[in-house]
């Protein structure tokens, strides 16, 4: 039996020096690259806005009340994810599962509201190509929407087929939910910056 076999060290318990298990360190690195991705989009937004002769104010063109509701939905889903992870700490899988379902539900509400927003824009013949403002609006919020969709799929996996791991290796399952939670908080963070810069300014 080769001594090390093929068990990868530190997948569950933290590394003595760095104090972090592999998954969390990997997720934080991925979030760093996401910061650079959205950072590039924000700097393009600033450059294009500063460079153009005139630019409509977000609130005069977009539906701000609906977007505010959307922001509240996303913040609540951020809290339910933390509560889910918190319940897993207390080995209460049932409650945690409920919180995860709540997160998925809220995320779906977010997507539905976004669908309403987009379809109302298309009715008024405001397409991405209409002008630069709508181009940036659709691209930024669309990419953020795709990230929300990705989060929904991950949480569906944890509630569905992935739940089996809770029985075999609860600690690793908790870590996975924590990493997914980190990603979800990041998506919420991006929306926290996206909302004022496009809708309000």
């Amino acid at each position, binding site marked *: *039996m*080769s*001594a*090390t*076999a*093929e*068990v*990868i*060290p*530190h*997948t569950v318990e933290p*590394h003595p020096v*760095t104090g*972090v298990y*592999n998954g969390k*360190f*990997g997720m934080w*690195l*991925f979030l*760093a*690259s*996401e910061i*650079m*991705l*959205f*950072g*590039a*989009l924000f700097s*393009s937004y600033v*450059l*294009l806005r500063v*460079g*153009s002769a005139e630019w409509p104010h977000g609130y005069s063109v977009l539906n701000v009340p609906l977007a505010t509701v959307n922001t509240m939905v996303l913040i609540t889903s951020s809290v339910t994810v933390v509560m889910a992870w918190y319940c897993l700490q207390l080995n209460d899988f049932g409650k945690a599962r409920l919180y995860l379902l709540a997160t998925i539900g809220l995320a779906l509400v977010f997507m539905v509201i976004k669908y309403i927003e987009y379809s109302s824009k298309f009715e008024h013949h405001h*397409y*991405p*190509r*209409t*002008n*630069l403002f*709508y*181009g*940036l609006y*659709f*691209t930024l919020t669309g*990419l953020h929407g795709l990230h929300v969709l990705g989060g929904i799929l991950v949480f569906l996996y944890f509630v569905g087929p992935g739940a089996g791991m809770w029985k075999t290796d609860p600690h690793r399952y908790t870590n996975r939910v924590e990493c997914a939670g980190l990603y979800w908080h990041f998506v919420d963070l991006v929306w926290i910056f996206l909302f004022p810069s496009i809708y309000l300014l």
Partner: protein
Amino acid sequence: MSAATHGSHAGHDHGAAHGHDLPFWRKYVFSVDHKVIGVQYTITALVFLLFGFSLMMIMRYQLAYPGRPLPIVGSWLGPGLVNADRSLSPDGYNVFGAMHGTIMVFLAVVPLVVGGFGNYVVPLQIGAPDMAFPRLNAASYWSYLSGGLVMFASFFMKGGAAQSGWTSYAPLAVISPGQTVWLLGMVLLITSSLLGSVNFIVTIVQLRAPGLSFFRLPFFVWAQFVTAFLLLLAFPPLEAAAILQLMDRIAGTSFFMPTGLVVSGQILPTEALPHTGGGSPLLWQHLFWFLAHPEVYVLILPAMGIVAEVVANNTRKPLWGYRSMVYAIIFLGFMSFIVWAHHMFMTGMGTKLSLFFATTTMIISIPSVVVLTALILSLWGAAMRFNSQFLFALAFLPMFAIGGLTGLPLGLPASDIHLHDTYYVIGHFHYVVAPGTIFAIFAGVYHWYPKVTGRKMSELLGRVHFWPSLICMNVIFLPMLFQGLQGLSRRTYDPLVYDAGQAVQGWHFVSSWGAWILAIAQIPFIINFFWSAVAGKKVSDNPWDATTLEWAAPSPPPHGNFLKSVSVYRDPYVYSPPGRPSDFWPQNQPPED
């Protein structure tokens, strides 16, 4: 090297009795073992290297004999690429130019040095059983392969492959055909690099063997560590730019399209190009070069790593100034993020801005000088063994010196006025990549081939491959420097149109023949590569008497790499220690015996 060789060894995997027998396609095709993925990366990237190389050979025919029908290849190429009389058409020349650049940078060299060597060697050198996230590693390879196939398929699609350069500058790339598929391929390749870099950083930080502190890491691992950070933080801005350009092309937005464009006599927006304007073409250049400069350091850092390994091993002497080299490449990695605009001196930047980027460019040339000087001084007081890999590593030093030095006139905005976008630029970066990185790749293949297959590559074929390659590299690229000084613009399909072109047409002829002879000089390597896998001389686990950890594992290492757990007691390159019988002291040998 090919998957088949693994079969012959797996039968009697001595010791690893537990070998859970996966079906063939799980063990070799969709494997999660970093070694199999490393081999898959290497072979796919070598195929793309050959493909990119052959595109260039066709272009060289047009440059050497402008307008003459292509000999054999002419009948194969479709109407989009050749004229009615089978000579290469201007569109064909631009398509081959753009795809030669894209394939060589994103599909051949980076996957070879990072995906192939990095995946195979780094876990072994740090004493880890595998990468931190094996499945992520497989996902990164398959995303790379699908990106490569998308790029390859774009040749056969209606619009043809991309034809606005590997830099795909904004208004041209948004209005010319073939760019959408190129962008999709790029997004796949970027995803592959991101997944790979996350994997590398976590592996190097978390899975080091006990006793292996950061400053006992082999220099190759340090190079991969800095490269992974460059990939992780530099690629996303290009992904953002690719998304914006994709929206420009598909949804008709105009992020990069200024107002009031008149294309082919028609004022935008028209049906075909519904851009209402307001965007900035320079935004694309800034985002692209924000990635592309760290990308060119991604090309050179692992090569420096490979050369350092081979030099230390074959001079039987520790590297001179190991710590100064490590600090140099960390500083290099950081600086590479704030030099990007020296590619854009000619876009109407003010002097304040040019001064800032010229200064950072001068500063960034210092760490490269430090690494090169350290490598040359490592030769002092050595006892050199001239095997094939050492020849390639030695050739890397002067060639990289020429490549780096010719970067100086391009880094100063004043001299850049004359030399920007001329053949001088092509000579500069090809000197760094071709006799630089690709020679380092050859050195790496000759050096780690015994570890991967358990057999040595033939030394004779190695020399038959080395000497003509070295001569041809200089025959191809030295004339380009002179053509550039003459002021001949790059990417010109028919140089005879310009006075400068007519004056230096002779050099095109020389470069083209150098390129074709270089192609012939690669045949011994290809033969050696496949023939030695089955008929090469069988060797022990440590044929080169090296000190780093990968030689403590059996060749080829089983799943899980090391038979007994490995721990580290000393620096990576303890060669010829005074008062010891043998002239090398492996890292994992306990100090007492």
